[in-house]
């Protein structure tokens, strides 16, 4: 594992949502109705017992509050920062139905889990050694959650990650105004502190270690390798300088330094959450003019409305109903050629035009890595995603999958939930025990 450099472009970012003070936390916690069979719990993919952790904040039992969170979600500290709570727990708070602002669940979760990290509380111990070993491909949220649960059951774990840093996209991808890379790594190390998890970074599967070798080493395998590189658009001029993948660009400025001093106008292609993160990040990094080019409009983009609202407020412009058809420039890109699109997102002939740009970020999706498992007989892949049953079992006995490589790309919290559940299934597989044992 390598250390992060001390100088990183992401360090200029401030928290978009400030932490709660003790006073604010107390007022907010006391506002919670302590619902029973609460909708917020069902809206959380990891099913955290939200009313209980909030009540425990109100009674001053912060340690118990944090434990309630971690019991369901071992990455509860970062999820408190990176979860799109507007469409998850807070979106289903019963107060919405009463026309009252929902309880700030994410911020309260951050309050409790931050206290746990500050105080150095640990809650879990590894189970007695079972003599079984599990190999986990990837060291992102899915694998971390799985490994932690497997250790509680007493199985030895090895994480393999092709990168030098652990934490997956939680480290290299999430917007620094939500969380910076070092915090994700601190959390990952806290998860690993349960002990008995061997971490091998800089190991790409299956190039550096074949499936056969992995099968020999381990009694079960867990696939948590996420998604691949940014998808490119095969358009004229695509090799000009100044055109790059958004996720790649984000990783570069989170883990190191990017120089945007010459950039006046940046264009981000896409309408998803990566595009929305990228435009906001470019503004904060000091690019004067940032435009998002999308085939549809605000009403049908896949990115979250609350994120677009924030981007707009920060000065991002949108170029709706337009689609790129080529890049213009000499050596370096100077504009994106676009064509207007109709309501059903089809190009309208005769509407070609140019949008000036000296930096273009592609946020039109990431490659699916299904082909990595081509040599693993019995593991089915559909649309690039690994096919599993409800608890993450692939068609090949002893091989499980979770997170982005299984679900096609959701949130950190989904990866945690799937990883945890797959670990429970792996435990059952390894011990022949009941699934809820």
């Amino acid at each position, binding site marked *: 594992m390598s250390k992060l450099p001390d100088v990183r472009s992401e360090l200029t970012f401030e928290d978009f949502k400030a932490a709660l003070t*003790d006073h604010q936390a107390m007022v907010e916690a006391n506002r919670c109705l302590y619902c*029973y069979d609460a909708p917020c719990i069902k809206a959380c993919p990891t099913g955290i017992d939200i009313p209980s952790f909030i*009540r425990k904040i109100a009674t001053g039992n912060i*340690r*118990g509050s944090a*434990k309630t969170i971690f019991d369901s979600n071992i990455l509860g500290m970062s999820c408190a920062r990176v979860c799109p709570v507007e469409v998850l727990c807070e979106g289903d708070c019963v107060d919405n139905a009463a026309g009252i602002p929902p309880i700030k669940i994410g911020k309260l979760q951050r309050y409790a889990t931050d206290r746990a990290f500050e105080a150095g509380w640990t809650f879990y111990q590894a189970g007695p050694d079972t003599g079984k070993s599990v190999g986990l491909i990837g060291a992102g949220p899915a694998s971390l959650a799985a490994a932690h649960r497997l250790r509680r059951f007493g199985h030895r774990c090895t994480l393999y990650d092709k990168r030098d840093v652990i934490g997956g996209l939680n480290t290299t991808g999430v917007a620094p105004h939500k969380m910076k890379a070092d915090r994700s790594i601190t959390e990952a190390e806290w998860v690993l502190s349960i002990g008995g998890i061997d971490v091998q970074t800089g190991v790409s599967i299956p190039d550096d270690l074949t499936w056969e070798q992995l099968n020999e080493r381990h009694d079960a395998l867990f696939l948590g390798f996420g998604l691949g590189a940014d998808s490119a658009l095969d358009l004229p001029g695509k090799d000009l300088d100044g055109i790059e993948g958004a996720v790649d660009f984000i990783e570069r400025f989170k883990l190191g330094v990017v120089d945007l001093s010459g950039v006046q106008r940046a264009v981000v292609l896409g309408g998803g959450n990566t595009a929305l993160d990228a435009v906001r990040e470019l503004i904060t990094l000091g690019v004067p003019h940032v435009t998002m080019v999308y085939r549809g409009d605000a009403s049908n983009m896949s990115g979250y409305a609350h994120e677009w609202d924030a981007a707009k407020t920060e000065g991002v412009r949108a170029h709706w109903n337009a689609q790129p058809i080529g890049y213009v420039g000499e050596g370096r890109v100077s504009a994106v050629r676009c064509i207007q699109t109709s309501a059903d997102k089809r190009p309208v002939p005769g509407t070609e035009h140019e949008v000036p740009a000296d930096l273009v970020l592609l946020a039109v999706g990431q490659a699916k890595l299904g082909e990595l498992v081509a040599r693993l007989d019995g593991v089915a892949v559909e649309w690039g995603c690994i096919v599993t049953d409800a608890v993450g079992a692939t068609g090949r006995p002893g091989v499980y999958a979770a997170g982005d490589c299984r679900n096609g790309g959701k949130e950190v919290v989904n990866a945690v939930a799937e990883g945890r559940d797959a670990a429970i299934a792996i435990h059952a597989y390894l011990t022949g025990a009941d699934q809820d044992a």
Partner: protein
Amino acid sequence: MPDLTSNTAGIISPNPFWLASAPPANSGAQVQRAFDAGWGGAVWKTLGQPIQNVSSRFGAIQWMGQNGVGFNNIELITDRPLDVNFREIYETKKRYPKHAIIASLMVETREEWREIIKRAEDAGADGLELNFGCPHGMCERGMGSAVGQEPRVNERITGWVKEFANVPVLVKLTPNVGDILPHGLAAQAGGADGVSLINTIKSIIGVDIDRFVPEPRVSTKSTNGGYCGAAVRPIALHMVAALAREPQFQIPISGIGGITNWRDAVEFLLLGSSSVQVCTEVMLRGYRIVEDMIEGLEDYMRAHDFARLDDFVGKAVPAYSEWGNLDINFETIAKIDPASCIGCNRCVVACHDGAHQCIHIDESGKTHVPFVDESECVGCNLCQIVCPVPGCISMVEVDNGYPPATWNEHVNEGVQVRPKKGAH
């Protein structure tokens, strides 16, 4: 890991948290769910000749958006057949042998007591609780608080019960008395192994001001009920402490009244309760509250290095004293932390209209932070109580140069007390 095992007069439970005798402990299915949630014991809904209840039965105080800060009921004892109750006690005890089940009993004649005690013990009850406390309905029939308010009757019936009982006997006391002491001592004299208190306080929870009928309304009338819930905690704490500090009173106490969380429970333990019982908070929020109680208690014990409950049960009792023994020369004044003050001026109005007119608004307009005239501040606490920001106002001890002196010492030995403050 601190040991939460609790022993109240020989009734052992894995933790000190019991359901009080009330609707949450009405049936076997409920008590079993409560044990699954973590409750250490349950005092079964009072058993006696099954009664018929009215509707509605409950009323509550709404305060600042919180419903149920105070709660009242006009419910009687169990309305379920005795053989059903005893069968369920038996089944529950069989499935949860380590948990404590205490049968709450209320009957009239000596023969009835003999009979019901035998049935409770046959069902496997770990202890008996004598309901000498219900302040409505049952007392009109000569039971409940009608017994609890008469020390001689209390002692006599407790004596009967002790004649028949083989398991520990707790007498549940009513708070509807001027002084709790004679009643606790009567129970002790009758042979009780312990007492539990408080039962509910005689009350009228409110009035339907358009129908001109008190609440809870039963058709065109209502009746006085029993008051409980968070609002009664101070009364309960006092009564528990009043017994705990009495040298003649030697038997264990199970504390009840307004307990809502671990902190409330710790207060009862510190004032001498060996176990605590909860009714209203469970009625309002469910058995699940016990998880926080257990965790919070464990954390508290870890923080204070207490290995077991006995390390701190009663630890605050010696500090509960007479007014005449308080140190008059001890002086505090209010200090406002300018960094956390939000400028609501609630301390100003409270001090001006309700205390000693010594917190003032900064007339220069340079700051929103009021200032305390320390030469006038009597250290009464009012400002700190009304301040909405935790930690913003603190009561700071000042060294006024006077050695400690109590009123009693002043009167009896002429010890010098400091000059009065704020008494112009």
